[in-house]
């Protein structure tokens, strides 16, 4: 076990000794030791199901550990609960935003511990105090506005403010960046460094490995509920990290090689909708096109509108030289055009239904033993033949086709969504944040599948907030900003800073010229 240099001088803020926790049938955590020092960012990393979240839930008091002890400031905590951990100065910032959209910023910040006089809330005092706290984090937000009017990045900052408002000196970040774009991440890191200087200790969970090197002091790797190693970040490199996380060697995370592009399969011309305008782009056969931009720049909205979920005001979507007449997902699917949505669990799958049903839902006609019009009867033999074919070809990790998708891991779920579209013989794919919340091992499998698809002549538009993914996988890259396409790169010319500049709203070359003319 390596110890941080700082640690030798100070008492740990928090110490976990021999923590074990099991759920029916699963040993989630097995004898974990962990410590956190003031002013340190301690990164926890591991595949999904490695036990990171369970560990953090034990720290926050949402779960009770079966064995082991927890010490905060040298004092042993016998009984923990969300309320006790809060009193101990532990603040949690979760992956999903937990703010209440219909409440004001100030009310959200003080949710669960309002400033009161007797029974009555002191609204003015809370607004004033929120303003002060937000200012400390360099945030210029009016604390009396409703949270629903704010962007995702701002909301994440409010989550942090919320945790700090409880005078936390231990913060736990559970994938805080999964819904943030790079620019917002920079802002977040800036804040984290400020907090570091104040002596606050932080646990930081992330699937984005490059973040670890940017922000982490120490890193602990977990696998299958066991601690593999704790080490100073500077003592480890990316490849070693990946190997330790996966427990095996992953040669190349981004396997994609450039193919010779064929004719354009997807063309979007001058599409304007609620959150975007005049978007034109094309994706050719054999091409993976990346789409980058800040969260809220309108990327997902373009994808949704093109696929037919939302109505667009003007413009056209052309698939394989045929214009889509109706704006509906059904029409798109008929033309071999599909969308893998960013929220797998709510938009991609029906979790209470099994793998087979999910996989076949858009291609039921292939399983019919007979049909009258659109009404057909599903033949169970055909059904199981198709499903088992895709389960094996995509290596979907499920014991049977009848397993409910809610019991599958994130990567497996994403494969089921992909299989659904492969069954429907789709050729044009929009992947919206394809690897969000998916661990490294599964990520590389998804990337391999994407590469195989374009090998077979498919066209892929990949929306991602992960710049390294964009740079690693794309042949061409569009950058969106404020609802418009702000520029385009060839993958060979693209750089991280170049993309960021465009994403932040600095005009691309063409736009610059236009502006000069005006």
């Amino acid at each position, binding site marked *: 076990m390596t110890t941080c240099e700082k640690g030798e001088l100070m008492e740990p803020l928090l110490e976990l000794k021999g923590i074990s926790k099991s759920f029916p049938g699963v040993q989630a955590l097995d004898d974990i030791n962990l410590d956190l020092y003031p002013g340190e960012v301690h990164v926890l990393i591991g595949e999904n199901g490695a036990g990171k979240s369970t560990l953090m839930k034990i720290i926050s008091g*949402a779960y009770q550990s079966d064995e082991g002890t927890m010490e905060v400031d040298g004092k042993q905590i016998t009984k923990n609960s969300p*309320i006790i951990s*809060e009193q101990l100065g532990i603040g949690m910032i979760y992956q999903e935003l937990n703010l*209440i959209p*219909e409440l004001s910023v100030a009310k959200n910040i003080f*949710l*669960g511990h309002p400033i009161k006089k007797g029974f009555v809330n002191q609204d003015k005092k809370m607004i004033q105090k929120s303003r002060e706290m937000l200012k400390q984090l360099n945030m210029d937000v009016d604390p009396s506005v409703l949270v629903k009017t*704010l962007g995702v990045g701002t909301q994440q900052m409010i989550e942090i403010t919320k945790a700090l408002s409880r005078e936390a000196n231990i913060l736990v970040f559970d994938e805080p960046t999964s819904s943030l774009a790079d620019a917002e991440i920079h802002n977040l890191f800036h804040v984290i460094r400020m907090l570091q200087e104040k002596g606050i200790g932080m646990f930081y969970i992330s699937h984005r490995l490059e973040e670890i090197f940017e922000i982490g002091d120490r890193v602990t790797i977990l696998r299958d509920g066991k601690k593999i190693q704790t080490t100073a970040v500077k003592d480890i490199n990316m490849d070693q990290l990946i190997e330790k996380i996966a427990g095996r060697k992953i040669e190349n995370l981004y396997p994609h090689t450039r193919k010779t592009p064929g004719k354009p399969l997807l063309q979007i011309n001058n599409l304007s909708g609620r*959150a975007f305008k005049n978007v034109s782009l094309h994706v050719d056969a054999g091409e993976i096109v990346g789409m980058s931009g800040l969260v809220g720049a*309108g990327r997902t909205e373009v994808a949704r509108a093109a696929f037919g979920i939302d109505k667009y005001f003007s413009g056209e979507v052309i698939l394989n030289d045929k214009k889509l007449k109706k704006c509906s997902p059904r029409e798109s699917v008929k033309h071999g055009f599909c969308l893998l949505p960013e929220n797998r669990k709510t938009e991609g799958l029906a979790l209470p239904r099994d793998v087979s049903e999910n996989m076949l839902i858009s291609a039921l006609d292939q399983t019919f033993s007979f049909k009258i019009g659109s009404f057909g009867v599903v033949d169970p033999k055909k059904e199981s033949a198709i499903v088992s074919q895709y389960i094996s070809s995509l290596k979907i990790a499920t014991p049977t086709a009848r397993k409910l998708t809610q019991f599958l891991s994130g990567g497996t779920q994403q494969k089921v969504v992909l299989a659904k579209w492969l069954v429907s013989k789709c050729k044009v794919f929009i992947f919206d944040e394809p690897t969000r919340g998916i661990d490294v091992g599964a990520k590389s499998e998804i990337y391999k599948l994407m590469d195989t698809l374009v090998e077979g002549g498919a066209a892929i538009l990949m929306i991602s907030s992960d710049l390294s993914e964009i740079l690693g996988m794309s042949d061409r890259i569009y950058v969106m900003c404020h609802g418009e396409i702000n520029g385009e790169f060839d993958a060979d010319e693209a750089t991280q800073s170049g993309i960021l500049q465009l994403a932040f709203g600095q005009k691309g070359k063409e736009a610059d010229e236009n502006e000069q003319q005006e």
Partner: protein
Amino acid sequence: MNSRNKSFRFSSLPSSTYIFVILLVLFSITVPNFFTPANFSTILEQAGVLVLISIGASFPIMTGGIDLAAGSVISLCGICMGVFLHNGIPDYIAVIGGVLVGTLFGFCNGYLVHKIKVPPFITTFGTMGIAESLANFFSDSRTIYWKENTNVHLIRALKTDLLEIWFGNGNSKLFSISGIVLFIFLVVAASIFIFNKTSWKENIYAIGHNIESARLCGIKVLKFSIGAYAISGCMSGIAAILILVRSNCATPIMGSGMEFQAIVAATIGGNVAEGGKGSIPGSIIGAFAIFIIRNAVNYLGLNSFVSMIITGITLLLGMVINELIAAQDLRKGGVRV
């Protein structure tokens, strides 16, 4: 990062306001005797029951649940109060006892929903029958009345007119505020105050939005989620007082069917089943909107089935208007950064 200016926006009004204003204007023009002070004081007093249980109904709805038992709990509470009074128990004790019964019943609903995890629709659907049975059992399925004795000071006080404005030679009452109206006003004011000024609003919103994350925020989830049903029960109890005072007796069917009217009022008022939002004034205005339909239809002397059709269509219309305004708001919202 667009911090909005606080200028007036239609969409920030409780959504029931539109249909209420439309109906109010329409009836004022077309219905004789509608737009008169006397009628307004009548409406204020009569609508009280619906207003109170609509407030009660909005709490479970805001947590993402529903309380179908509210109506039969009114009957149960009323019967309990009636039985107490019948046996000569002083009225303030009887009334408090009845409200406690309602609160307890609501508490049991909440306990089943949030502790035993029976879906709210099923829980309250079941307890609706239970409350109905109990009301019939305690009353032996009969109307309960009591002797006009010295024990009913409170009831008498509620009945007296506190403020009366007479017109002309003293034959026509122009406007009056009775003890009941004052009582309703106090309860409504108290519930709005408690909801907005103490932690109820944010905690209930948080629970309705996501109960697990509310728990992780350190909110005492059970206290507030069960509390929401208890409040609904309590409001049913208070509503029972009103009916009791107004009719001077208690019947085992006095609250039947009211849960639906209350849920409809709350829904028009923007308390939607997804939970995590909603407003008390919305429910109140919603209740008035429903009530003035009945009032106007009575003045017009229409058949009760014509009034059914009008009520049904108005409901649909109200929901459509809500929908349109929400869509308009969304369109104006533009890009969120």
